[in-house]
């Protein structure tokens, strides 16, 4: 399972990568916003996307919409990990087809639960 972690803060990318490794996902790559992430997704063989919302360049919500609009990527599971916690935003992400939504600050257990739930639904 190859996972792309998108966040503009390197510390947050590092935290998520460490947590993913602890859960057994060792094949991860990083991008610092949607603009760099989208071509990586289009040209790579990623199975899963973890993205922040608020980033310079292309925001996470727009990356999610671009992924859903791309025939090759449309079915890729997307987990949002973000500090954005307005109800409208969560609804917007749900309507755009997000598979899971985690608000920062979060715990290792939350990440584990959401990942398991997403995989459960896919199987």
């Amino acid at each position: 399972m190859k996972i792309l972690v998108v966040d503009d803060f390197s510390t947050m990318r590092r935290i998520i990568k460490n947590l993913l490794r602890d859960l057994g996902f060792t094949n991860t790559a990083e991008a610092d916003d949607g603009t760099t992430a989208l071509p990586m997704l289009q040209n790579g063989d990623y199975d899963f996307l973890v993205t922040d919302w608020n980033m310079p360049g292309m925001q996470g919500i727009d990356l999610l919409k671009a992924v859903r609009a791309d025939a090759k990527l449309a079915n890729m599971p997307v987990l949002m990990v973000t500090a954005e916690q307005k109800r409208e935003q969560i609804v917007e992400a749900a309507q755009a087809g997000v598979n899971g939504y985690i608000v920062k600050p979060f715990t290792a257990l939350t990440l584990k639960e959401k990942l398991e739930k997403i995989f459960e639904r896919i199987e």
Partner: protein
Amino acid sequence: MLEAEGLITEDNIARVKDLLATMEAGNEAGVKEVLDELTHIRESDIYQEMGKLTRELHDAIKTFGMDDQIANITEHDIPDARARLKHVIDMTDKAANRTMDAVEESLPICAGMESRSSNLHEAWARFRQRDMDVNEFRELAQQLGTFLDENTIDAGKVRNSLNDILMAQDFQDLTSQIIKRVIALVEQVEDKLIGLVSLTSEQFDKTIEHKEKNGLEAAGPAVPGLDDAGVVSGQDEVDDLLSSLGF
């Protein structure tokens, strides 16, 4: 804006009576002359009022511009605050990375201790049940010796990492001091801005409605007590909201 009683004077009443008489007499040129005179009186009042306002505004701007503190804030304090806040970001970034370095060093050490312990467990259990011959016991004793040596070294490494994590938290004290200074500056700027607003507008309306941001614009982390409207309080509420949407 113009004083009503300033217009109703005996002179003006005489002028209006004159105007009526001139009109009734059919004197076209005379009517024009009286009307011009009246218009002139009215215009000069407006010019005077405008002149007064311009002077007041000019004085206000001069007073405001001559305030050394404002010049100082603009030229020095704000760029200074910007640099200090940048330093706060650098310090927190460094602390986070230093902490994660220490954690990443310790994790494989702990994993090693864990696997060595579980390897010994099985042999140790057989020894306790006296299900072990002399040769096996000799091997176990050797393994135990190595285990204790390695554990002593590894525990020391983990202790060093933990101390390093502890020391990396010193940023909190330093960044708080810097941020407090910037808050004091923001208060000063606020005072000056209130002064400016009340100079330029006599009816400074303190109840001006806070313009709501577009809900779908990224708002950044919600601050308790400031961003409570329309915001979920944590992961549980996110989960409830999503499950109400059929997730």
